[in-house]
């Protein structure tokens, strides 16, 4: 019978915690990029300007139809050839943030499409300009409609962030791998970080439910 042994935590606990902090840094960085860029992309895809719409569509399609790991390697190992070089963590944030923005784009776009013509006309008839209509009515409505899916996407993002260890980022997974190498306790360590990811995503889901209760709307 295998005996669990978590003694490695005494020595490597701090390393694991630092790894988790890095994970948090990456996911919140990506959350912001993913949300802002995702919104911009969604608006571009709704644009009447063919060039803007086409560019955004191609951009999103490429990102959605290629593996994230390959995107990550492209950013980290490919782009430096062109002289674009950033450290592992910034690269992870940028690559994963852009990847998330493509997923968010589609979700936000479906929210935007649910805002029917009547809302635009009603706002116009009240005297609002285009930008104000977007800012005060269309986007708030679209975000609320998209909220649940955006949260699912965020959870996906948290889980996917573990892939970033492969470009030498010492986030949770990276730290775990190093500790495994030094202690040969893979069962305990991977079990532990599985639980950590699980708890973290549970907390996010729980908070999201609370928020959703507040902002939920029906059209």
């Amino acid at each position: 019978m295998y005996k669990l042994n978590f003694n490695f935590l005494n020595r490597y606990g701090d390393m694991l915690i630092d790894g988790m902090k890095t994970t948090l840094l990456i996911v919140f960085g990506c959350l912001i990029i993913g949300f802002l860029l995702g919104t911009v992309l969604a608006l571009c895809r709704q644009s009447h300007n063919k060039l803007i719409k086409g560019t955004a569509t191609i951009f999103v399609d490429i990102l959605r139809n290629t593996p994230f790991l390959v995107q990550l390697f492209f950013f980290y190992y490919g782009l430096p050839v062109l002289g674009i070089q950033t450290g592992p963590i910034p690269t992870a944030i940028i690559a994963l943030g852009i990847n998330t923005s493509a997923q968010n784009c589609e979700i936000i776009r479906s929210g935007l499409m649910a805002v029917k013509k009547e809302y635009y006309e009603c706002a116009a008839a009240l005297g609002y300009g285009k930008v104000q209509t977007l800012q005060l009515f269309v986007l708030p409505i679209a975000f609320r409609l998209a909220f649940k899916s955006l949260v699912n996407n965020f959870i996906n993002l948290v889980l996917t962030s573990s892939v970033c260890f492969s470009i030498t980022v010492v986030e949770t997974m990276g730290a775990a791998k190093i500790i495994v190498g030094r202690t040969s306790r893979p069962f305990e360590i991977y079990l532990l970080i599985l639980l950590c990811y699980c708890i973290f995503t549970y907390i996010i889901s729980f908070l999201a439910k609370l928020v959703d209760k507040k902002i939920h709307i029906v059209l």
Partner: protein
Amino acid sequence: MYIQRTTNDNYESLIHDITGKVGKEMAMIEVKNVTKSFGTLTVLKNFNVEFNQEGVTVLLGPSGTGKSTLLRCINGLETVDEGDILVNGRSVKEKKNLRDIRLDCGMVFQRTVLFPHLNVMQNLTMSPVKLLKMDKAKAEEKAIYYLKKVGLESKAKALHNELSGGEQQRIAIARALMMNPKALLLDEITSALDPEMTSEVLKILENLAAEGVCMLCVTHEMQFAKHAASRIIFMDKGSMEADVTAEEFFSTVRKENERIAKFLNFIGE
């Protein structure tokens, strides 16, 4: 030409605004030789009409004759192909005038939407606060005044899906009035409602009419037209068929004009 809008200190004077006259020789809304087509379908043909800021004008006519299109052209939701429409001297053809035109003409639609992420109070106060830079507290005070007017002061916190269709229309009327429009453009605002709700809404309109709010309404409610309208315009196939006082319309005109007689018979009047 540009009239600066200001927020007044108390709503008494704000109320006065909507009944006050424009104070110019010209008509408030001048529709001059307007032609409007959708593809090959010409909906308005060389249409001419003027509206002063007075009383209730009812637009009547069979379905598809361009009544909605006329109202939508007046506040710039549709562009006119030929001719021009001036609202307080401002042409709807100039994009920069649209905001002022829309502030002058409050519009309520058949299928109203209240903004779903805002409660009733927020639906009412947002526009004066954002567009007229009215103080929030003052806007709320004013909102309560209009909520009372439409009999819904108890619903200030409600969301749109907690209101009946008739209540939503009454809120939409209040929302339009919050902006001190010089006229209200109402497009069949009761036709999606059941009879009970219809009478609730019409009652509000009659009260507003009695207070002197200027309205331009498309409606099939003949009782309302008889009670509240001072002027009746009958449109058919994009042209003006009659433009008369309500008394004339329901006495002499309906006897003399075949098409009007037919229309009134058709809608059971």
